């Protein structure tokens, strides 16, 4: 569904992505792991068009999205949803207005229908009765759930997740993992997740890819990655300070 070919990106002379090659399959949960600062967020921002590569291509169903016009790409964006690391809820709007935002901007649905859809999406993420609350009144876990409800409001084909469990306690993290599995199976959506949470990866991933020094160095199923002897991958998966990856 998404093919990333030789993607390169530098910022002020510092190389962040150095020829990334990756395929994201339709209907699967693909997880990209890597250390903090390796470029996972930069990679995901390229997929959603927030950044343009220095070179390389990103093909969506065979079409290169990096060279599309703004008008064409805006139509492509309607196939995507994204959950940001901090949820990025609009803090001047209620939960109901946040989740229904894209529906109000892009459709002519009557307000009553939108409110019904919002209620259904919130129920799907395990939240009920929070429509009139403001983002500032929500806990971290609730914000992520509302963010996910907003991301799936338009029934997108692809949902991107930027560190969905960062900042959450282990119980809440597991609950978010369950939620991601439930919604993905129900909606048959393609999920692309970037994270350094190994437990989350093991629980939800159909495919895992490790980003290290600007390239995908290993990819496979969870079982394949667990059995992979690559010392860099092993050090990351086992969470050891000592190994080929130097901390300082």
């Amino acid at each position, binding site marked *: 569904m998404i093919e990333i070919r030789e993607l390169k990106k530098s910022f002020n002379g510092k190389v962040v992505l150095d020829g990334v090659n990756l395929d994201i399959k339709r209907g699967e949960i693909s997880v990209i792991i890597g250390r903090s600062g390796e470029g996972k967020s930069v990679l995901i921002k390229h997929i*959603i068009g927030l950044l343009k590569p220095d070179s390389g291509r990103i093909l969506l169903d065979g079409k290169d999205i990096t060279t599309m016009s703004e008008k064409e790409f805006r139509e492509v964006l309607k196939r995507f949803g994204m959950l940001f690391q901090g949820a990025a809820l609009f803090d001047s709007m209620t939960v109901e207005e946040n989740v229904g935002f894209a529906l109000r*901007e892009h459709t002519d649905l009557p307000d009553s229908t939108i409110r019904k859809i919002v209620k259904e999406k919130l129920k799907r993420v395990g939240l009920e009765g929070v429509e009139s609350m403001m983002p500032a009144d929500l806990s971290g876990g609730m914000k992520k759930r509302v963010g996910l409800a907003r991301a799936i409001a338009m029934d997108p084909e692809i949902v991107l997740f930027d560190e969905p469990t960062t900042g959450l306690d282990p119980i809440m993290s597991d609950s978010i993992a369950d939620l991601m599995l439930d919604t993905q199976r129900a909606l048959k959506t393609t999920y692309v997740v970037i994270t350094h949470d190994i437990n989350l990866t093991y629980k939800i991933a159909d495919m895992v890819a490790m980003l290290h020094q600007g390239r995908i160095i290993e990819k496979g199923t969870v079982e394949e990655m667990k059995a992979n002897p690559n010392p860099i991958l092993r050090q990351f998966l086992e969470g050891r300070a000592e190994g080929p990856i130097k901390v300082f």
Partner: protein
Amino acid sequence: MREFFERLGLMAEKAVITTGQIIIMLFQAVYYLFLPPFKFRNMFKQMEFVGVRSLFVVVLTGSFTGMVLAMQGYNALKRFGAESLVGPTVALSMARELGPVLTGLMVTGRAGSAMATELGTMRVTEQIDALYTMAINPVKYLVTPRIVAGVLMLPVLAIITDFVGVLGGYFVGVKLLGINPGVYIGRTIDFVSVNDIFYGLTKSAVFGLIITLISSFQGYHASGGAEGVGRAATSAVVLSCVLILVSDYFLTSIMF
């Protein structure tokens, strides 16, 4: 020495780049104004924020400015036996200069800083990125309504400032300093023309554009967390005030 010139060069380069970015944002905002879909709700919300919520501060500013002008004007004109010209002095000063400029400066402090802070916070918490990912053009959604609000509401506020300024001047001149009310009003009507008011309102519209464009730009491009947002708000206010005063000179020299 070399370091000094390097720094100077970098500052000049940054100033040129920033000016270019501001002009590009202005062109984009105006372009998107005429591109459907048209979302008037956002525009009215901004007009209410910039205009209606600034009423109290501009009424206060205008009335006291008129009162001070009348007092100072009377003091100066009495030496020439020209107290009857206090009315026109207040009215002309308010309409041509003080109304637009003081309104602009007050709205900068109130609405301009709030705009920069709001957009800056949206930027650093990825809310602007979220808008983009929902296929909504952030400039069209955030900046265009603010600029429209500034251009439309500043002249309205300026005329209110002029009116309360003249009222304040009347109160001081007639009630406190004993100028004949008929003379005060009559001389005011004799000397103040429609052009004086019109040019003042034109200045206000330009100031409204400056405030909203600069404040939106600073907030939209904020970075570096809370400190960055604070910097954006400060820059927005300082730059807007400076540009209001500089453009005031050039507009005055063209119009008058």
